[in-house]
């Protein structure tokens, strides 16, 4: 069992973290445990110890079809293995004849609870070729101001240079109308134009582009260059290779095209927004990819500079007097376009999922662009999303570059994943929160109550990468006739099977099998407590609450969170009834209240400081990042740099601010370097440039270096804020700190420290209340 260890190691080779590592055996116990039983899994996380087996796995007989794993009981003499899930006995096939106690295949090594199989490529050579050349379809907004357009063009040019030669590239630009560029037409620049105001079905789009669904000419790579003339029935003319060309063939064309690409020429009336038909553009892009051979890995990379103002998927009307919806509007149901738009984008999401294609959304605008509505596509297809202020901002530029980078820095973007979960009897799967789509394959293990993408034991992950993380919610449902508590059933097993196309086009199957202990009796809370993972619990609670906030009207998240916390503390705390002072918590729970305190104040709960787009963006990332990163989102880390000591983590408290310190705050989405007043003055006076003050220069440099490290490894690239105490940008730090000193308590503030102008309660007050309420009878 994976015990809690330091955060880095917690996931081990499996990449699985659970809220409860010892599972309550009964439904009642489970519900009394307050924090749901959930596992956060990273299906294709890279790990140095991971072994790849070059042959297909052995599977248990249907319908179980679990894969042979170290937890199987193997009878070497009889050449039989017993599946830990269904207890079926399976004979080893002939090619395993040599198996013996001393000669076990890799998948039975105890340390290889996670192992990867390289599956043979599909039999269809065309499909194999298709799989080998990923498709990048750029969907470019042209309703931009000149500068932004130049920024985005140069980003695109750089990206095209980075693409692998065999990658197929397509370009769609849109503004008032959608322009599909036929890159394979040599005579002149040829563009298919779709109106922005009309919703088109997939078949209509294919038909209008002259394409046949699911077809791709046999010669995919390099095929379009020789566009043969005069063939009586030209199969190419109906092929999608007219629009998608290998990067090596179309680099020149694309660059020339980008050079000529102009801003949308349709006039913008006074008092109106530019007409931007993002919705139709996306559906055309999806339709175009529908003509690709099934199994082709394809990404739609949408570069959007504003909200959709025309046609289906409308975010806001073109009338400038109508503001883009806010959380308040959503709350009051005063956002007239919202539900319609979500429904529309949901349709596109379904289509893309069925095709196995991904949407990446790069939104760069000062105002909202409709991420809240389009989130559904990104999430279902496992796409990436980056929200920035401008296409010239590093948050966009560097993030955009990352997705095309190769080698170590590569995101490991993979395609066409499928996740199947096997679990022991008595365990039901409620669903998954994260970037995936239910395949609606209902099995014995699917629970009736659904969380996120449920009603299935199989999920589609159109796009996944090394950092993709999913949260699986389980339910314990012992059947009546299940065997009475006995030795045989002390362990429970879970197996996660992920097949996917790696970036180089190979088909892989990763099998992760984990086991956990059942906790039999209701009385045995200690065992439960010992198996509790507070970080995971905090993140799962955050994800779960976010989901409920989105899906349930009138859901009072803070209240729900408070009550859950109180119940949890009541259940697992040590105290005498009605004596707050007696309250203590086991170390397994000790920092959870602080997480909860910060979660309550975080952007996930306090949505009204953010736009719906930002909230959506934060939530997508919360759901797709691993536990460690997600914890940072909930409770940022703060490091303090001073002359007196090496960099030390410090309390996320306003008290950490000092005039002679530099603070480095990592709030995941932003990294703040905060100079105390004195430091700032010194710096402004240029001491760091004087040789005798090298130490100061180093001190100034250290947090910057650390920030760079954080930024380099993170996707999307966080915003770097460098600020000084009392500067306007300091709010990025102050907003995250515990307001232990406010303007109301200004009297006792230490010199050089700071106060926060807020009426929010501080952590202490929160704790006091918690203690009081937890011990109430």
């Amino acid at each position, binding site marked *: 069992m994976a015990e809690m260890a330091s955060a880095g190691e917690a996931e081990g080779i499996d990449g699985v973290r659970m809220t409860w590592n010892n599972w309550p055996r009964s439904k009642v116990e489970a519900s009394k445990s307050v924090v749901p039983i959930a596992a956060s899994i990273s299906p294709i996380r890279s790990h140095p110890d991971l072994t790849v087996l070059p042959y297909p796995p052995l599977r248990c007989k249907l319908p179980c079809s679990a894969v042979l794993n170290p937890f199987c009981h193997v009878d070497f003499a009889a050449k039989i293995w017993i599946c830990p899930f269904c207890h079926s006995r399976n004979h080893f096939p002939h090619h395993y004849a040599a198996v013996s106690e001393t000669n076990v295949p890799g998948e039975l090594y105890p340390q290889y609870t996670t192992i990867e199989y390289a599956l043979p490529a599909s039999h269809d050579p065309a499909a194999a070729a298709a799989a080998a050349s990923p498709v990048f379809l750029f969907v470019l907004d042209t309703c931009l101001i000149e500068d932004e357009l130049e920024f985005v063009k140069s980003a695109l040019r750089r990206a095209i240079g980075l693409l692998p030669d065999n990658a197929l590239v397509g370009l769609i630009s849109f503004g008032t109308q959608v322009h599909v560029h036929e890159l394979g037409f040599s*005579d002149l620049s040829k*563009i298919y*134009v779709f109106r922005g105001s009309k919703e088109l079905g997939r078949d209509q789009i294919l038909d209008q582009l002259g394409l046949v669904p699911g077809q791709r000419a046999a010669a995919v790579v390099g095929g379009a260059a020789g566009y043969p003339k005069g063939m009586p029935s030209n199969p190419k*003319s109906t092929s999608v290779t007219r629009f998608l060309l290998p990067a090596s063939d179309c680099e020149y064309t694309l660059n020339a095209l980008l050079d*000529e690409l102009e801003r949308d*020429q349709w006039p913008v009336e006074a008092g109106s927004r530019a007409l931007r038909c993002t919705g139709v553009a996306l559906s055309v892009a999806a339709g175009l990819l529908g003509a690709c051979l099934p199994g082709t890995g394809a990404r739609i990379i949408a570069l959007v500079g504003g909200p959709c103002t025309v046609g289906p998927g409308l975010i806001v009307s073109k009338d400038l007097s109508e503001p883009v919806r806010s959380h308040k509007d959503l709350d009051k149901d005063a956002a007239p376009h919202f539900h319609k738009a979500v429904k529309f984008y949901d349709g596109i999401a379904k289509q893309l999922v069925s095709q196995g294609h991904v949407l990446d959304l790069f939104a760069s605008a000062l105002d909202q662009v409709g991420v809240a509505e389009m989130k559904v596509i990104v999430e279902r297809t496992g796409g990436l999303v980056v929200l920035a202020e401008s296409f010239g901002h590093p948050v966009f530029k560097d993030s955009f570059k990352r997705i095309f980078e190769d080698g170590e820095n590569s995101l490991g973007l993979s395609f066409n994943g499928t996740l199947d979960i096997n679990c022991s009897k008595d365990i039901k799967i409620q669903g998954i929160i994260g970037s995936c789509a239910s395949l609606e394959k209902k099995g014995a293990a699917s629970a009736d109550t659904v969380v996120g993408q449920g009603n299935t034991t199989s999920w589609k992950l159109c796009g996944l990468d090394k950092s993709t993380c999913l949260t699986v919610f389980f339910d314990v449902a012992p059947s009546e006739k299940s065997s009475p508590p006995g030795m045989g059933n002390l362990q429970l097993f879970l197996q996660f099977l992920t097949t996917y196309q790696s970036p180089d086009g190979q088909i892989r199957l990763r099998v992760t099998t984990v086991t956990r202990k059942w906790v039999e009796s209701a009385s045995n809370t200690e065992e439960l407590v010992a198996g509790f993972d507070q970080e995971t619990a905090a993140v799962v609670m955050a994800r779960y609450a976010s989901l409920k906030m989105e899906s349930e009207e009138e859901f009072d998240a803070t209240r729900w969170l408070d009550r859950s916390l109180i119940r949890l503390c009541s259940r697992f705390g040590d105290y005498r009834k009605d004596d707050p002072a007696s309250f203590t918590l086991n170390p397994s729970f000790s920092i959870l209240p602080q997480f909860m305190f910060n979660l309550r104040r975080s952007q996930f709960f306090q949505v009204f400081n953010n736009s719906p787009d930002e909230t959506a963006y934060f939530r997508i990332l919360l759901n797709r990042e691993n536990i460690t990163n997600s914890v940072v989102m909930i409770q940022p880390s703060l490091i303090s740099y001073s002359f007196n000591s090496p960099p030390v983590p410090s309390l996320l408290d306003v008290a950490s601010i000092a005039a002679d310190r530099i603070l480095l705050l990592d709030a995941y989405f932003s990294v703040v370097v905060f100079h105390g007043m004195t430091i700032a003055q010194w710096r402004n006076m240029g001491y760091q440039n004087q040789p005798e003050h090298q130490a100061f220069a180093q001190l100034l440099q250290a947090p910057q270096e650390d920030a760079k490290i954080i930024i380099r490894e993170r996707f999307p690239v966080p915003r770097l804020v460098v600020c000084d105490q009392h500067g306007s940008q300091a709010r990025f730090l102050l907003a995250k700190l515990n307001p232990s000193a406010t303007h109301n308590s200004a009297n006792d503030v230490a010199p050089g420290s700071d106060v926060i102008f807020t009426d929010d309660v501080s952590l202490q007050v929160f704790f006091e209340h918690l203690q009081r309420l937890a011990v109430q009878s």
Partner: protein
Amino acid sequence: MASSSGPPSRPPPGYIPPSSTVRQPNPATLAGPMQNLQIGQPMAQPGPNPAPYGAFAGQGPISRFGPPGRPLGSPAIAPIGPIVGNGPSSSAIPGQRFPPPANSQYPAGRGPAPPFQSQVQPGRSFPGSPPLGASLSSQTLPPAQNSVPSQPIPRAVAASPPFAGPPSQYPPGVPPFQGYPGRPLQQPPPAIPPASYSATPQPAPQSFSGPPPPPSFTGLSRSQPFAAPGPSQMFSRPPISSSSYQVPPSMPGVMQAPPRMYGMAAHGQSTGFPTAVGQSPIAAAQGSSPSKIDPNQIPRPVPTLSETIFETRLGNQANLPPPASSEYVVRDNGNCSPRLMRCTVNQIPCTSDLISTSSMPLALLVQPLALPHPSEEPIQVVDFGESGPIRCSRCKGYINPFMKFIDQGKRFICNLCGFTDETPRDYFCNLGPDGRRRDADERPELCRGAVEFVATKEYMVRDPMPPVFFFLIDVSMNAIQTGATAAVCSAIGQAIADLPEGPRTMVGLATFDSTIHFYSLRRGSQQPLMLIVPDIQDVYTPLHSDIIVQLTECRQHLGQLLESIPSMFETNRISESAFGAATKAAFLALKPTGGKLLVFQSVLPSAGVGSLSAREAEGRANVSSSDKEAHKLLQPIDKSYKTMALEFAEQQVCVDAFITAQSYVDMASISVISATTGGQVYYYYPFSAVSDSAKLYNDLRWNVTRPQGFEAVMRVRCGQGLQVQDYHGHFCKRIPTDIDLPAIDCDKTIMVTFKHDDKFQEGTECAFQCALLYTTMYGERRIRVTTLSLPCTSMLSNLFRSADLDAQFTCMLKQAAMGVPINSLSQVRDQMTNFCINILHSYRKFCATVSSSGQLILPEALKLLPLYTLALTKSIGLRSDGRLDERSYWVNRVASLSVPLAAPLVYPRLFAVHSLGTKDDDESAIPPTLPLSSEHITDDGVYLLENGEDALIYVGNSVRNEMLEQIFGTPSVDGISSQFVLQQHDNELSKRLNDAINEIRRQRCSFLRLRLCRKSDPSGMLFFSYMVEDKSPSGLSYVEFLVHVHRQIQTKMA
């Protein structure tokens, strides 16, 4: 354009090679409005003026009115001889005057002069009989009947040919058939003494066996308005006096008093030549046996060859206009030129009873931008400054020469509604002793029937639009493979060179198959950008700007693009064609400005909005219903095109469709768009890249360069007593009184019908005024006002005398075209025949003497009506055997057809090519014409037939090889390609043929589609289908028809 399917490497005559430099005149020199009008003069010389066909480019200036006008007019001819000495007449006056009845110059005894009944003489063939005389002679004709002497006017009578009436009805040999002035074709030079007749130098043997005309002949010959130089004989003209002939024709200008005068009508003939030979019109099919009618003697159109001067008013009276097809120079002295407006009757009946009794239509044919004769004074432009033109405050009629100023000029009375208005102070002028304003002669609006006013802001809803031309080209498989696309691209490429070069001229281009491809033309140095609109169910424009750009900015790009389009789509395998959607999309691009949309379509529209089905085939498959319902296929299949067209018209978009088809395209549905938006349909069937490219180019060139206006509104006002009943033609009508014309050009004619709502007083005049508000090619807003004031009459005879054959027939033709899609063909044919019969019956009943009851009496002015009616019933539109599309095209074409082109459309001109050049002394390009009867066609001859639209060259089976060599450059008939392109070879005959064809093209303002007909092929059948005087499965022969008409009249009389 080097493409193989492009135009032939060697341009056919009349085709301007791209390199040639025919250019628009420098706009600067055209600044004056007038020049503007002349620009498009089709007859103008080459050089700077855009001639309709490029043919003339580079030739020396041809004086249009010179020689051609008078091919026959050898000086020897007395142009206006009164006929046979009848009457005192003022024959010399070209225009006729109608003195009041009391003045009649005829001896009372004569009574009304009946038109002559010509007596048909058996066995005779007249001196004038055409070459086919041979066949004639075969007829057995009773001899003797001819004797002229018995007639009151002996000379005239002599030669009348027998008329073949149905045997049973008429006693043999009874009434002679009268000659008529309107001799068909060529007449011998008048100067030739009778004696010379038989000896006429014609190549064709003269067959007439009849005795030469009596001495009277000379007189006669004089009376002939046209001298026929042709080979054919002079016609027997003076035939006149059959016994029934009672009154020698009066001289022109003479007014017949008694209402009953029959013959008088003849005078009414407005023709410029007074000569109206005494004979009038009538062909009498007397009781004589039918077989007695001499086909050579019956009325046929006679080309007028000499140019005349026509004063629109004489002695303060409206003058009778000359025949529409004749050459005349108009002097506008109050009434507008008959080219601009022509009324079916030149005296307005005082009451509605009168007009209904006459059975004649009352309609005005308005061709507001008609090309003037080059020698005519241009229409003057009057600028009233900011106040705009003076108008009647009640009816809003425009100031014109017939507004009467009273009270020393302080007030004026509107001649249209009778209201009295104050004269604006700054327009005041004293009256002279004659009651006219002293400045009347200085002010065009007070002395001219046609003026153009500069429109003020009040007449504009927006700034005048620039000329915008949008070309929409079919590139579907069929169009590419037949070479249509290449031909079209080449034609556009060349025609663009001739577009007016102003900075405002804008062009756009799109192609389409099952999608629509626009091109953005304004893009730095880059290639054009192609923008595809794939949604053909619900179209839109792909760009906001740059689809239609200024010509000056994109000439080069456009040229390159046009060159590359054929190769770009060379391998196109898309056979679908989204005509409707493409048109709609192009319209959307044009919407902000309006303009002309020129669509080139090759196949049945099969995709997208407005897609059509092959109804023709369905109709055929479903035979049971097809007969009864056949005409339904001539109606648009549904309202969709009409709805589209109304929307187009609203935005001032005019659609011209060039159909280069190989099969059925449902013309009935497609043509609605053009018809509603003031456009025109061109039909090339079956399209041949070899032979039709030149026509395509010339049609296109004329289309874009001819004088035309945009965003026009037209209204016709008339004097109190009449009201406008309806307008007919190509336009869009939203309110009852006005018609909207997104575009109007010099070739378009609109028919306006009237009805009485009150009575007129005898002796007053009724005025008609047409006001056309339009924008010129140069972006000037103008109001062209044409006024025609005609006397009112309460006498039927005056009506008949002043009847205008050309106008009436045009009216009839248009009525027929309107009827075709609504009624079955046989019904329409019957209607037309009855129409003719009713008029003649009315004349017979009320204007002819009782004693002549046995004769067929035709009013002089309308003597050709039966022939035209017969030809009409055998025309493409009314024939049962034609293709649906052809009929629809005909219907569409007729709706906007001008008066001068109406009769030729059904009664084409036929020329003997083989005899061209045999007369060296004849400097006219146009040879004499032959009657449309197969009797005149010989097997060793080559013939040219033209109807203003098509020209057929017919080659007989035994034509001499040398002649073939001369004309076609190949010695055998079979050696001539059926995809025929006429070339000029280095010999006299070929040269003359080419000259003749070019001259015809110029006259018709149409390049004529030249087709080869061989006797042995189906094409020969086509040729013979134009021989309308023959008996054919589709109808009676001319003679039989006359007999039929006569019998019907007699039945009615009984």
